[in-house]
């Protein structure tokens, strides 16, 4: 029923009678696809040292995205990604696309992903361009978080020997 209703709403059902042609589709097919079949929904353990978490947006604005990446420490490659998004269909689709695009890529490469590319891929209307920007921000935030975590663990590892000396 939901699908039938959605199709009717989106004007995908051919008109049964002789009325004027069906109304313009409101969401692009790709957005609907990501909305109905979102890829990579889920979450990783935040405390895992190989996981970077990017959390962007504000509930008051109506959009919150959490995007997580699992990074191979040695190669710096993103082996897995997942997201959870609260917001409109375009926001969900943007973050879903983002997780698809970043899988298997290097961290340096994914920070070059531009919101314009996401928006073009999903044919987002002008009012929804901000959703694609949020997805770009989420990617960058996840990478930053991972790097900060790594820097912290490295700093801790470096500090340990000196602590032991002090205690000896």
């Amino acid at each position, binding site marked *: 029923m*939901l699908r039938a*209703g959605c199709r009717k709403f989106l004007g995908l059902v051919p008109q049964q009678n002789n009325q004027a042609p069906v109304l313009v589709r409101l969401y692009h097919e790709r957005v609907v696809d990501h*909305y109905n079949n979102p890829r990579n*929904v889920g979450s990783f353990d935040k405390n895992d040292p190989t996981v970077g978490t990017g959390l962007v947006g504000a*509930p008051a604005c109506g959009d919150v995205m959490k995007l997580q990446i699992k990074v191979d420490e040695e190669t710096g490659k993103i082996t897995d990604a997942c997201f959870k998004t609260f917001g409109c269909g375009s926001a969900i689709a943007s973050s879903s696309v983002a997780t698809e695009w970043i899988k298997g890529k290097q961290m340096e490469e994914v920070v070059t992903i531009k919101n314009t590319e996401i928006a073009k891929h999903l044919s987002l209307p002008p009012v929804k361009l901000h959703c694609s920007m949020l997805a770009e921000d989420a990617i960058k935030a996840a990478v*930053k978080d991972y790097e900060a975590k790594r820097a912290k663990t490295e700093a801790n590892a470096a500090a340990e020997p000196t602590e032991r000396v002090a205690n000896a």
Partner: protein
Amino acid sequence: MLSSMRKCLSFRRFLVLESYSSSSLHRHQCFSPLYILPSPFIHEASRAPDLSATVASAHRVFCSRSSIIDDAQGPAAIDYRSILEEDEFHCVADATINDLQEKLEEYGDSIQIDGFDIDYANQVLTLKLGNSGTYVLNKQTPNRQIWLSSPVSGPSRFDWDRSGQSWIYRRTKANLIQLLEIELEQLCGKPISLS
């Protein structure tokens, strides 16, 4: 049918979240799905113990806590309420948008562009330039920002700079008025003064 459709869509939205509310995020006490989803599915959300958190705290901005924030590159964690009071924000933002609307209407009268249209409805200013694209300008009150969607430069978010008395996009240091002047001249061929 439409209202049940909206409910279905809200439910779908919630499904994507799954147990979002019970994740480690809830310790921020900012996120309250109860506030956002006025639906019969509220009982699902009550899995998390903490959802009686006040709505007012939902205004805080989320940001990845442990990152070394580079303002120019990424989102910044700022409590916008401390920067600009809401009344002042509305006053300044409304003045800016009304002013822009008037000037753009005059501009529209003086140039010949097919499909030129300006509409200000529900606090959203929409400027259609036919084949050149559409601009959307609106207030984003929780962030104390003006959001712009441009066919040339994409989305930008402008903050009020008291010292310069202007709207500035932090990441690129762009000035809203100047950006619009430059882009409109580029798209329509005729210069415009919006200040």
